[in-house]
């Protein structure tokens, strides 16, 4: 807004509530110095889909790594240095021409933080959670990912401790690419399973 440089934007009720809770907890000595900044930094810059993209690119280039990744996702992902909360029990599901995998959490918003970062808003909002288990073919088409009628769709509802990562199919005509170039092709949506590359 053009006038926002002259006066602060109005504080919304939810901001006032956050500020109230922050102030009370801080006064009670419960918020360690720098903690909020540390949490923010961690999720804004240290984790995100760029991590998952590295895992995917490695699997595309190295058949033995791919085998390890599909057999024990947690251990293979840890080889590249990624792990931690919401990534302690990873299962990687592979897309092929005949099978398409997609992940969802109908009960809340479980998501593999170490490899994909925090989930996008639409993944956490009710329409995606309600519809992906009921009409995945229609919803995928609506989200720009139409699949052939004969393709099998496997939906994975992250309802317990396992977190999922989709291993997308390697696009054609990428034989000459380096690992870094391949990783740059891999999108967040392709690793959730709402897009194909």
């Amino acid at each position, binding site marked *: 807004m053009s006038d926002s440089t002259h006066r602060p934007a109005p504080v919304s009720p939810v901001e*006032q509530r*956050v500020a109230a*809770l922050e102030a009370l*907890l801080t006064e009670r000595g419960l918020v360690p110095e720098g903690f909020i900044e540390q949490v923010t930094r961690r*999720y804004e810059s240290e984790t995100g889909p760029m991590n998952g993209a590295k895992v995917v690119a490695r699997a595309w280039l190295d058949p033995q790594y791919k085998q390890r990744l599909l057999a024990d996702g947690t251990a293979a992902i840890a080889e590249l240095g990624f792990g931690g909360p919401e990534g302690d029990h990873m299962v990687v599901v592979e897309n092929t021409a005949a099978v398409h995998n997609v992940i969802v959490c109908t009960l809340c918003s479980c998501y593999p933080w170490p490899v994909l970062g*925090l989930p996008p808003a639409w993944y956490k909002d009710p*329409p995606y959670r309600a519809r992906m288990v009921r009409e995945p073919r229609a919803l995928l088409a609506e989200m720009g990912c139409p699949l052939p009628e004969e393709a099998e769709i496997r939906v994975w509802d*992250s309802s317990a401790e396992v977190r999922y990562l989709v291993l997308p199919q390697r696009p054609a005509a990428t034989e000459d690419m380096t690992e870094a170039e391949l990783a740059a092709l891999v999108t967040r949506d392709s690793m959730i399973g709402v897009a194909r590359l």
Partner: protein
Amino acid sequence: MLVDGIHDLGGMQGLGAVDHSPAEPVFRHRWEAVARALLLVVADAAGASGGEFRHAIERMEPGHYLTSGYYEHWLTAAATLAVEHGLVTVSELEARAGGRFPLSGPVLAPPVADAGPDAGTPRFGVGDRVRVREWHPPGHTRCPGYVRGKAGTVVRVDGIYSVPDIEAHGTARRHEPTYSVQFDAAELWGDGQRGVRVHVDLWDSYLEPS
């Protein structure tokens, strides 16, 4: 279809289109990051388990749940747990916020005193047919309503983990094997859709042989 809480969204109709954006900032506003961090602070100070934290969100007033985003859910859960564990009071929160501070509703399930023995050995193996128990617990559960009473096939046996239904309601714990169970979408919804399989990860006691 019966569901036990507004959060149990699998299969619910009438919610409209997915507001899909291919990329977005991790936090759209600073308050979102603060809310996220404060829940970690409260969970730590209150000694709240993952089950208790999730249940604090699930107990939100349904209209508030559906019309607020993820970080407002986290804020509401953090404030609710902070009040329930005696870290702050509702009147302090409302005085500081300068207005109403909506919190989640009360816990309806009684505390679990006796969790029963751990189940160390999986009852089911890959390929076994199982049926999900048809029940409606008043408290927290990680068994989605849309698979209750439905039959499926075990496709993966996972680790042994604390049962959320128990850990959300006290300090008692029980550990059980978990499974990934595959359901044919046509069986779940009775609508004839083909080539669609939905996999749900379930604790041992949610299941019975089929």
